């Protein structure tokens, strides 16, 4: 199904040329529609013609934010820029600290951990077993990190989500998005010195959703680092 969507998405321009001749091509050729970022005129037409694009992207965004929370609990489901780069610059990057200079209070850690549990249940409750297992592993890993005395979690977030394509076919939808993720943390090395990191990476997230009643739910979510943005 995913390849089918992709093949249609790749045909957007030829379809537009046909459409310009006056044929009503999109509904006639396929029930699948696509919406793309970047001012693609065909995408704009499709998006306006299909009221499902917005709710699909809303559900996908919720899943993407939940995914990030599974790996590094956020304090908000809103998009936020990475403040870590400025922090790192102020600290001269690789300079070691004699003690952690920033960390969440235990109460905050517990609150975020609980919020991550809730986000997992809400976003991935109807997901495939494979996705559930992957996200559960992320959640378990981050909980282990949060309890590690040599680790200080500071913050995490998603600063941008750009949808490259959104395809809807009946009760199934697939979105592809570039997502900018970040986290901030400190580690203690074997000499007792603390080091801060604030990685920011762009990942390409492919989300598959199914419609149950009037609600779109994520059934699978895979991702890879964008070229040039891997660790």
């Amino acid at each position, binding site marked *: 199904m995913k390849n089918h969507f992709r093949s249609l998405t790749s045909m957007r321009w030829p379809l537009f040329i046909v459409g310009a001749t006056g044929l009503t091509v999109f509904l006639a050729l396929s029930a699948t529609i696509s919406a793309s970022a970047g001012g693609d005129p065909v995408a704009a037409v499709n998006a306006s013609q299909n009221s499902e694009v917005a709710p699909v992207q809303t559900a996908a965004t919720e899943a993407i934010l939940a995914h990030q929370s*599974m*790996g*590094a609990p956020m304090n908000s489901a809103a998009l936020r820029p990475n403040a870590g780069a400025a922090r790192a610059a102020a600290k001269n*990057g*690789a*300079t*070691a600290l004699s003690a952690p200079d920033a960390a969440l209070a235990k109460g905050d850690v517990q609150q975020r951990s609980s919020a991550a549990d809730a986000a997992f249940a809400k976003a991935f409750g109807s997901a495939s077993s*494979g996705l559930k297992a*992957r996200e559960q*592993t*992320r959640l378990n*890993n*981050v909980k282990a*990190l949060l309890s590690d005395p*040599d*680790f200080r979690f500071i913050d*995490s977030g998603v600063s941008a989500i750009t949808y490259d394509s959104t395809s809807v076919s009946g009760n199934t939808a697939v979105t592809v998005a570039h997502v900018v*993720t*970040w*986290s901030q943390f400190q*580690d203690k*090395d*074997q*000499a007792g*010195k603390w*080091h801060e*990191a604030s*990685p*920011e*990476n762009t*990942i390409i997230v492919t989300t598959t959703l199914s419609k149950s009643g009037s609600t779109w739910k994520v059934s699978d979510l*895979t*991702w*890879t*680092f964008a*070229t*040039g*943005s*891997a*660790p």
Partner: protein
Amino acid sequence: MGLALALATSVAVAPNASAYDKYGAAAYADAWALGRNRAYPSFGSDCTNFVSQALVGGGFSMVGYPKSTTDDHNWWVAPHYWWWDWTYSWSSASHLRQFLIWHVPGGYSQGQASGSSASTWTPSSVVTGDVLFYDWGGGEGISHASMQVGWGTDPNSGWYGNYVDQHTTDRRHAFWSLRPYNSQMASTTTVYFMT
């Protein structure tokens, strides 16, 4: 990679082996970690191409030229008209790992670790010149490779321990788990060690 291997002097297969020079491989990796050797192709995702070059730099012979590019028993790159031809195993991390497992002498799996690991050292059996493979946990399996080249302080992160050289993103002496660079480190990210 601690077994006898051949020095590649051309694209022709030369299975007669001499010892794999792990320090030679590391020296090549150090020399080209932040650059591109025009004697080889360069890819947008260049990690495995870079590790393959370093293996050759350590005396690892190309295998199977000009046989199938898709068969992971083969591992080679060669000029082809105005560009290059190469095997999957030369340019793709999962295929290189399969080649190393199948090839004799090749490589041996030496365990795995979480990408969120802050452990100072890689397993003791993993030494300079060995290859590390990474599964980021996004569902696509192993998709990255680097070469362990020594130990010390990662100049960019300040982390201390074993470090690696890699391409895309190009890094020299990066902390082995890449944890300081990975906003997705708590994923199912796994590092596989080949020695």
